[in-house]
Structure formats: C-alpha cells, structure tokens
C-alpha cells in the first residue's frame, strides 16, 4: 500500500473538519465583513471596517484589549517563571507543583471570573479583609484599569506558565548551566546568560498563547469589565447582536481584526524563538 496515500487518508478527516468548519466560517465571515455575503445591507467594500474603526469606541476598546493582554501576559509569565525556578531543584517539588498547577488548568475561565468577582467586588472578601485592617480599597471590578479581568487571567495562566517552564527546565538546560558554573559563572550570570535564554523559546511560546487567548476572550471582561470602554471581543459581540443589520458585518469585522493581531503576534514569535535558541547554543533550529 502506498505509504504517503495512507497518511493523507488518515489525516484527511481531521484536516477537513478544521478546514471546513473553521476555515469555512472564517472565510464566510470575511466575505460578510466585505458586504459580499450574508444578511447584510453593507455595501461591497471596506465600509464595515471603516464604520467600526471610526470613532472612539474601537480605539478605546483596542487600547483596553492590548492593555489587558499585555499586562496579564507579563504578570503571568513573571510569576510562573519565578515559581518554576524556585521549585525546580527536587523531583518531588516539581511533581507536586505540576500536579497542583494542573488542577487549576481545566477550570473554565467563566468560573474563574465568578470566583474572582466574589473576591474582588466592592463587597468582596478582599474589601472585607481590607476594611478590618482599616484600609479602603478602590473599585477593582468594573474599574478603569480592568484589575479584576487581569487578575482572573493571571490567576489562570500563571500555573500554565509554571508547568511549561518546569517541563522545559527538565531538558538540556541543566547541562548548559553546569558547564557555565564549572567555567566560573556566578549564579546570577548563569541565570541571565544561560537559563533564561534557554527558556526563552518556551516562555515566548507560552506568552503568545496567553496573549492570543486573552485578546479574544469574551466571558471574563463581559462579566468583570465596565460598560465603556469595552475590550474588542465584547464590542464585537455587542455589534454582532445589535438590532440593526449592518451590525453583523461590523461584529465580524472586529472579530477578524482581533484574529489578525493574534496571528501577527504568533508570526513575530516564530522569528524570535529561532533567534533566541541560536544565541545560546550557537545552533540554528
């Protein structure tokens, strides 16, 4: 039997599922945003994109989305990497930490949002605790800086970073560190010049995943965010379900703009991760 053909036959059902159900929806959505298809009174062309990007709601939403994703990604990575470096030395510590972190991973973000809401709301546990020690907290839910939204993302993603980085630390990283230490590098130098650069591909990959996810996530800001400005996914949903017909094209247009930003981030990552590994090992992957 033809080896290649068998392979194609095996992969075809999965590929068709993704291409038809995912790619198809994406393509058809693109056509709708251009006024080419669907229930729409949008003229053919970029009218929907112009209407959407015109005005402060989009600009404010985009800035808020970028703020949330950037801060959440940065904090989650910093906390996850720090915890991984602190826990890496013993196999038992690694196993326990991985298990604990794994328990948190499958908790749906919506539940995280509900829990963080109970914790950070004006009458939440944190405010109660702060009050007993005589501190008045500012609003943390539906506040201008989206503190609760960011908190939920960091809570959920930092354990994810921890697991990925712990796994990456199990590889050849220790050997390189040993060589550097034998050559007389001090711990701080080892960390800066060996450990972190070797972890860079994993850290970058996980950053891109978190950034892309938070950029496109709806439930958390919908539940914990404020009415204005709204991050892009919430804005997209509002437009899409608006009473007027043109809203549908506009909603899809915003959703596709989010997708474009996420994909651009991923492409930037591919280049960056190659360079990062090359710098340390001298190898090109």
């Amino acid at each position, binding site marked *: 039997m033809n080896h290649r053909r068998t392979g194609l036959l095996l992969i075809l059902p999965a590929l068709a599922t993704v291409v038809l159900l995912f790619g198809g929806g994406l393509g058809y959505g693109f056509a709708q945003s251009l006024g080419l298809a669907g229930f729409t009174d949008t003229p053919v062309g970029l009218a929907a994109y112009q209407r959407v990007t015109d005005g402060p709601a989009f600009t404010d939403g985009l800035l808020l989305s970028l703020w949330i994703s950037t801060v959440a990604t940065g904090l989650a990575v910093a906390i996850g990497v720090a915890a991984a470096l602190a826990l890496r030395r013993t196999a038992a510590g690694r196993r326990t930490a991985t298990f*604990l972190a794994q328990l948190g991973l499958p908790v749906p973000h919506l539940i995280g949002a509900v829990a963080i809401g109970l914790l950070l709301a004006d009458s939440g546990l944190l405010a109660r605790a702060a009050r*007993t020690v005589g501190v008045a907290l500012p609003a943390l839910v539906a506040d201008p800086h989206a503190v609760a939204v960011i908190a939920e993302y960091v809570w959920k993603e930092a354990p994810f970073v921890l697991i990925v980085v712990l796994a990456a630390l199990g590889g050849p990283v220790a050997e390189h560190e040993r060589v550097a230490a034998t050559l007389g590098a001090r711990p*701080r130098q080892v960390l800066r010049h060996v450990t972190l650069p070797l972890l860079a591909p994993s850290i970058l990959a996980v950053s891109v995943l978190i950034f892309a996810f938070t950029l496109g996530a709806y439930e958390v800001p919908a539940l914990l965010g404020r009415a204005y400005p709204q991050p892009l996914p919430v804005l997209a949903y509002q437009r899409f379900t608006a009473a007027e017909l043109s809203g549908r094209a506009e909603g899809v247009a915003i959703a596709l703009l989010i997708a474009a930003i996420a994909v651009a981030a991923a492409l930037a990552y591919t280049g960056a991760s190659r360079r990062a590994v090359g710098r340390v090992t001298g190898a090109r992957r």
Partner: protein
Amino acid sequence: MTEAGLTKESRPVQEAPPVQEAGRPRRPLGAGLARPTVLILTGLWVAGPLLPLAVQAFTDQWFYPDLWPARWSLAGWEQALGPQSRLAEAVTTSVGIGAAVAALATALGAAAGRALAWHRLPGRRLIELVLLAPVLVPPFAVAMGAQIVYLRAGLADSLTGVVLAQLPAATAYATLLMSGVWAGVDPALERQARTLGAGTWRAFREVSLPQLRGGLVVAAMFAFLISWSDYLLTLLIGGGVVTTVPLLLFATAAGSGNQAATAAIALVAVAPPLLLTALAARQLAGRDTALLGVGR
C-alpha cells in the same frame, strides 16, 4: 551567551568554592527560596479563589463587612436545583455535547496523529499550520461568520450545530496531542505483527492500541473539557436555546444578583474538570505539557 561576559568573570576552577559531588552545579538563583513555602503558595494560588465559592454557596446572609457568613443556608442550592432551575437539564446538555465532541475529536485526532507521527506527508508544514489555526484564532470569529450557514442548514439552535461548532478546536488539540503519543509508539512492532500474518486493523488493535490507551484517555478528556468550558460558541450557534452549564452560570452571575445560587452553579460546573484532572494526573504526568494549553 556572550563569551566575553563569561571570560571576564571567570576564575580558575581551583579558586571556586569546592565543587560538590561530581558535576553538581552551584545552586542557581531562586533555589534559596524555601521550597515548601513556594509549594504552599502554589496550592493557595490555585485553590484560594475557588474556596470562597464553597462558602458562598451555603449562605444566604453574608453582609458586608462580615468576614464570615452570619447564617448558613441551603437557599442557594434550592434555587440552583429547584423546580424553577434548569441546572439538571443544563448538565445533561453539557455532558451530551461534551461526550459527542470528545468521541469525534479523539477518533479524528487519533487517525491524524498517526499520520503526522509515522507518515511522510506532502505539505506537512501547511497541514501543521492549519491544525494550529484554531489554537490562535479566537473561535468566536469563526462562529460569527458561520452562524448564517448554520441558520440556513437548520443547524442553528440545535445540539448538532453546537457540537459542530466546538469540534474544530477540540480536533486540533486532540491531533496535536495524539501525534505526540504516536511518536512514542514503535512502528516496527505493527510491521512485525503484519509479517506474522495479522491484518492492518488487527495489527493496530492488538499492538498499537494498548500503547495508545493513556493518550486516548487524555485526548478525550481534553476535548470534553474544551466543550464543557465553552460559552460564546454555544451562545452564538445554540442561540440561547441550547442551554449548557456555562450559559446558565453566566446568566445567573450577570443577571440574578443571587450570589449563593451563582456559587452553587459554579461549584457544579467546576467539579468535573477538577475530578477528571485529579483522576488523570498519572496519565498527564508524562505528556508533552505544552499541550495543556488546552486548559487556557
């Protein structure tokens, strides 16, 4: 690493503090932190925000600024489980959709994973890119575009429609995971079985399948959890008619102001992911952990 940076700081080995047993490096930065503390912090980090849910669900009077509820009550549960509630129905719907997505995605992923791991494929990079798309592109962008197609095909507001909408992402993850699992199985073993006279199917079933079992369980579990967590796709394609647990939770959390009922539903929603993960912990341990991105 800049070589200059190292040479500048390097000293003869003899001057360095005595090297611990053969090849042991000095402790890297951060190792000085007390490990138990960090472990406890990790546990608190994960469980901390979920614990108040468990308290909140059993009280109906927890006025600000009390640190502890004034009165315990099952009112929240009565609300969540009572005749007015649709929680039981929502759980059935969620489990049904999740099981269908898990079965389909695992089967598709197992086949595709074998192809990726064992076969030479033309356009492999393109195939991998296509399979990664659902991981990077927010799925609701797809659902918004596809909603009209589902409407026209009569699949909107139906269980089938929601399963189809959730399937691509679950399939993509299952495929990526299963290709890793297949890569750990030796193709030579199946060939030997074939040489000894077994058919293609029998060689697969009796030689490879037993080695895949753990991977299949994890793939099915992930696919189920992707489905179990989904909110926006279900809302867009299910049109609010297909009420899953997340839809009910969101409506209660955003619309009712009944915190006890919200917490009770949240506890019901969080139990399956926690139980499944705890049960599968041993299976999960050896996996390519990056794939746990499923849990994002």
